[in-house]
């Protein structure tokens, strides 16, 4: 092929923004050699087309098919390095995004892939776990539990079989970084799972991927086949199998014990703990369930050392966080930065403020169970401890910005109705509490509720927080009660006098 090489993302969101239409329009042209890469994550610029130049890649943004002559002539491209949204980030886990072809084994290794696995193979399982301990990595799925502790429990447990399970349920609305990894850099997830398998002595792995992600599922399956052919899939001289299993639209199946039930083919109902999955998980065997991003963070730690990872971020939150910006901001997209910037700094520096004509009303961090922040509260540092102190969660790093047209009562009702729908039904506080809370919010909307109902809503919330079996019921009241606290008039003005 002698055409000009153009790079175009194959990511689901890039395609939804128009990249696929460009690919269709240009596929047959002999003057173009189209390379489908992962996405940089600067989704506000998509569809984006890049080409090589002596100063590195040049980008054309918001491209239409008619822009091709301009691109081929080299007119108007801007160097990637001059896009502040990207240059201000610290990319470690997402370093290859926008650069490589997701399913190229060579490109993965050229970018440093497998270096972590090689180091891991030179040491003992306990040396791997020690490295993770030094790194102070905490889980990225929401609970922020120290990764090494789980691995240590599973490694020392005696069992005929052990499992590694990647939680790819990514249920929180407003999050998409796991999807990006699975579609854009699947070998990084596989390498992380392999390192975990060596550390705990597991022979089989599963990736439980939500059904809403068909492209991720297909890409993972292709990556597993390719890795298998290349002889990568072994642990301690034994074959290590990885299978992708589809979810079926249930949010609570992202909770690790419900996920295991679902993997076993049953109703995805939460299990009482203890025992924790690391002791007794899939089919009663020691199982590490970790988030996709957590596994994808492991290869760099083994390649560059735990101390390197611990040197990034803040005291209690080491490393980088992948924030996913959405809602009514000017520049939505993926942001990988060390922990520690404030929420306001992130919204200003990366989001570049609100979309045209919109004014900020509230920001929800951490998915549908995350607390709402008002403008006055945005100076909170992005780290686990500050959020815990504020009774909030970072969750999986989703940030959704709402503008002043948002009806907070309707948003509260929507969030509580979601929990009522998704409750697995095992514990009463969540199953009944969420339904009653939704009913009260419905009644307020109809103008039929009284002050006493508002007190009941708060009381219900306190009971759910204190007594629910898992985080679904336990966290459900937070966004609603924070809306009530910050925007009381929107609730009270609709009460029956």
């Amino acid at each position, binding site marked *: 092929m002698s055409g000009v090489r153009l790079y175009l993302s194959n990511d689901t969101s890039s395609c939804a923004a128009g990249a696929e239409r460009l690919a269709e329009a240009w596929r047959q042209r002999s003057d173009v050699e189209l390379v489908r890469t992962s996405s940089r994550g600067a989704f506000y610029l998509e569809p984006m087309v890049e080409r090589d130049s002596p100063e590195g890649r040049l980008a054309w943004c918001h491209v239409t098919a008619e822009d091709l002559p301009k691109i081929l002539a080299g007119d108007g491209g801007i160097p990637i390095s001059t896009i502040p949204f990207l240059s201000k980030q610290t990319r470690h886990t997402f370093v290859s995004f926008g650069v490589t072809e997701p399913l190229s084994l060579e490109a993965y290794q050229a970018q440093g892939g497998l270096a972590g696995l090689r180091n891991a193979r030179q040491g003992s399982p306990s040396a791997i776990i020690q490295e993770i301990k030094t790194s102070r990595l905490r889980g990225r799925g929401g609970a922020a539990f120290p990764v090494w502790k789980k691995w240590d429990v599973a490694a020392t447990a005696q069992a005929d079989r052990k499992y590694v399970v990647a939680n790819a349920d990514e249920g929180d609305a*407003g999050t998409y970084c796991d999807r990006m990894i699975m579609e854009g850099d699947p070998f990084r997830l596989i390498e992380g799972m392999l390192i975990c398998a060596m550390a705990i002595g597991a022979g089989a792995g599963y990736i439980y991927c939500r059904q*809403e992600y068909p492209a991720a599922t297909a890409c993972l399956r292709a990556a597993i086949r390719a890795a298998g052919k290349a002889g990568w899939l072994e642990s301690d001289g034994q074959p290590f199998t990885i299978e992708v299993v589809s979810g079926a639209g249930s949010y609570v199946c992202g909770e690790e014990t419900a996920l295991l039930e679902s993997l076993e083919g049953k109703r*995805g109902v939460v299990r009482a703990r203890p025992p924790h999955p690391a002791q007794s998980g899939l089919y009663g065997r020691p199982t590490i369930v970790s988030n996709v991003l957590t596994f994808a963070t492991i290869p760099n730690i083994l390649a560059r050392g735990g101390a390197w990872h611990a040197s990034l971020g803040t005291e209690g939150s080491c490393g980088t966080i992948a924030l996913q910006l959405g809602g009514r901001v000017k520049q939505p997209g993926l942001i990988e930065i060390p922990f520690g910037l404030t929420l306001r700094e992130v919204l200003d520096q990366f989001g570049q403020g609100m979309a045209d004509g919109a004014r900020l009303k509230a920001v929800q961090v951490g998915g549908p169970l995350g607390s709402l922040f008002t403008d006055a509260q945005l100076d909170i540092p992005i780290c686990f401890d500050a959020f815990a102190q504020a009774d909030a969660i970072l969750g999986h790093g989703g940030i959704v910005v709402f503008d002043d047209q948002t009806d907070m009562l309707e948003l509260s009702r929507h969030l509580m109705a979601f929990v009522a729908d998704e409750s697995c039904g095992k514990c009463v506080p969540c199953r009944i509490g969420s339904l009653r809370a939704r009913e009260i919010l419905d009644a307020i909307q109809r103008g039929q509720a009284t002050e006493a109902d508002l007190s009941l809503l708060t009381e219900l919330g306190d009971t759910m927080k204190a007594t629910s079996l898992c985080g679904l019921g336990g966290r459900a009241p937070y966004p609603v009660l924070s809306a009530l606290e910050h925007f009381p008039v929107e609730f009270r003005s609709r009460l029956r006098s």
Partner: protein
Amino acid sequence: MLGSMRYAVKTPLPNGLDELLTHARPAEGAPPNILRVLHAIHDVCGYIDPRFIPAIAQSQGVTEADVAGVLSYYPSLNTQPSGRHRIQVCLGESCLANRCDRVVAAIQSQLGIELGQTTSDSRFTLEPVACVGNCAVSPSVRIDGELHGRVRPSDVAGFLDRYR
């Protein structure tokens, strides 16, 4: 033995499904997996006819109640055929913030159906979905396999025309 014959008579399985169920039988000593079988049938038929429950139960060596329990638990397992084209509108928070309610209203008025319904000519089924991971270019609408981002209410008529 008698049981299996009775089921075979009671449950007329469409082409290929009996073979699928034979294949899905757990190996000696291996645990059953109900959800896996349901997925496999759903992939073939587009929905799961509750009349298949006894045959599924038999293939997995579990009770009909077990199968019915799993089938009713998962939102994306349909028990009725849907229209020729499935429209999924995201109602996740990023899409909400970007006014997906207006997109939903446009689709509803165009098709004359509510969320969860199928048009009388069986052309479209309209379903809500909670986030498809396309939040950065929301609002999101998926029609069959194709995902559309930054959808405006004015786009709706043009989209729907393309699906016959």
